[in-house]
């Protein structure tokens, strides 16, 4: 039976179709990411005025804010793809979650390191147990556990099932930790004076290059995700072909 090309979104969950579409998309997304990042970062670093209070250190937001945004959103994306795997059992979905996790680790690490670099001149310390920083540190640990579990299990479907459930349970506990940390820090410090919220302090001159940078990071993530998912699919395909050779 012949199906129309636009029959369903789920068609793209077929590995072969996904490879075809992603192969076509990848160069566009990659170039988009490169252009957005180049424009946004150069604009942000060299063509915006220094902040009257923070001086030139404020410019680290062009790395810090997009990385932090991606760190959270990649986890949410992993949660969604894990759910799709659990419910509809599309292999591409599980592999996309697997492919996204290390990118998430790196984004979280970038957010933490740039935060420390920014914190040094601003707060006079590399690290403060500010609720926001602490939450990111905990998120980092969740990412590490998730990646480690994928690595530890041999059977790919078992690994996909177990990591998906870990992702669901982990998401609940990550949320709980976020509120716990907010509660915990209130009990210690005044909190608010230390917690410097980047978004609130951003003026229009900084705002547009920041948006460009965020777009660049999103495109960069999509490009990496497509690339890594394609690699995972091909690795599985090689394994499947080898298994067929052995069986024949």
């Amino acid at each position, binding site marked *: 039976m012949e199906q129309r090309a636009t029959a369903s979104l789920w068609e793209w969950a077929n590995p072969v179709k996904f490879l075809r579409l992603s192969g076509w998309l990848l160069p566009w997304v990659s170039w988009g990411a490169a252009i957005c990042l180049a424009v946004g970062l150069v604009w942000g670093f060299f063509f915006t005025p220094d902040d009257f209070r923070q001086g030139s250190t404020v410019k680290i937001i062009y790395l810090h804010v997009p990385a932090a945004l991606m760190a959270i959103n990649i986890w949410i994306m992993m949660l969604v793809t894990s759910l799709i795997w659990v419910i509809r059992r599309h292999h591409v979905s599980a592999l996309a979650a697997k492919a996204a996790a290390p990118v998430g680790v790196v984004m979280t690490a970038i957010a933490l390191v740039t935060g420390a670099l920014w914190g040094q001149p601003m707060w006079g310390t590399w690290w403060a147990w500010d609720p926001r920083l602490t939450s990111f540190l905990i998120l980092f640990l969740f990412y590490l556990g998730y990646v480690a579990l994928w690595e530890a299990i041999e059977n790919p479907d078992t690994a996909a099932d177990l990591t998906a459930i870990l992702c669901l349970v982990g998401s609940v506990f990550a949320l709980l930790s976020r509120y716990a940390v907010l509660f915990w820090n209130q009990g210690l410090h005044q909190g608010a004076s230390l917690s410097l919220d980047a978004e609130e302090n951003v003026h229009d001159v900084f705002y547009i290059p920041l948006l460009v940078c965020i777009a660049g990071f999103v495109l960069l993530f999509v490009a990496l995700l497509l690339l890594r998912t394609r690699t995972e699919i091909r690795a599985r395909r090689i*394994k499947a072909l080898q298994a067929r050779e052995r*069986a*024949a």
Partner: protein
Amino acid sequence: MLLSVHDLAVARGGVPVLEGLSFALAPGEALILRGPNGSGKTTLLRTVAGLQPPLAGRIDAASDAIAYAAHADGLKATLTVTENLTFWARVFGTGDIAPALAAFALEDLADRPAGALSAGQKRRLGLARLLVTGRPVWALDEPTVSLDTAAVGLFADAVRAHLARGGAALIATHIDLGLEARHFDVAVCKASPRAAAEDEAFL
């Protein structure tokens, strides 16, 4: 029918090993599974016991019909023979363990820790567990491993008594138990070589 299997296909590690299996067990019947090592007898028994999902086909049996015994006996070394057996009797909600001890000549060992038993004695204790499950269908995987001739005789008697009580047994074994039973060579149902189910989408 206590157990009937229709057009069953089973997989080990995702790779199909047996397909097109159909058989049925009525009360009092035993079926001996034969086949070379690696032919899928263990996988078939695990699937019938409900430990892994079938790849295709249907298994019709009451949810509490099957008692499964595998290579590992599930014994705790620090518990005595009686304690081990009483535990399983209570888990399965049956009472008396004395007949099970008697059937496998374990009375003299009743107070010994399972860790101090020989391999054959452990095996006898593992098989005695079947009697306390109170379940009608026994699915046994190489039950006679490390048993001596006398113990094999005890085991065959236990199976015969179980069948006489209206039970049934599905036994994978290589030795002749002297039972009145049908034999079934699983090799005839060997699955055609193909990819693991989880790999199919990638070919």
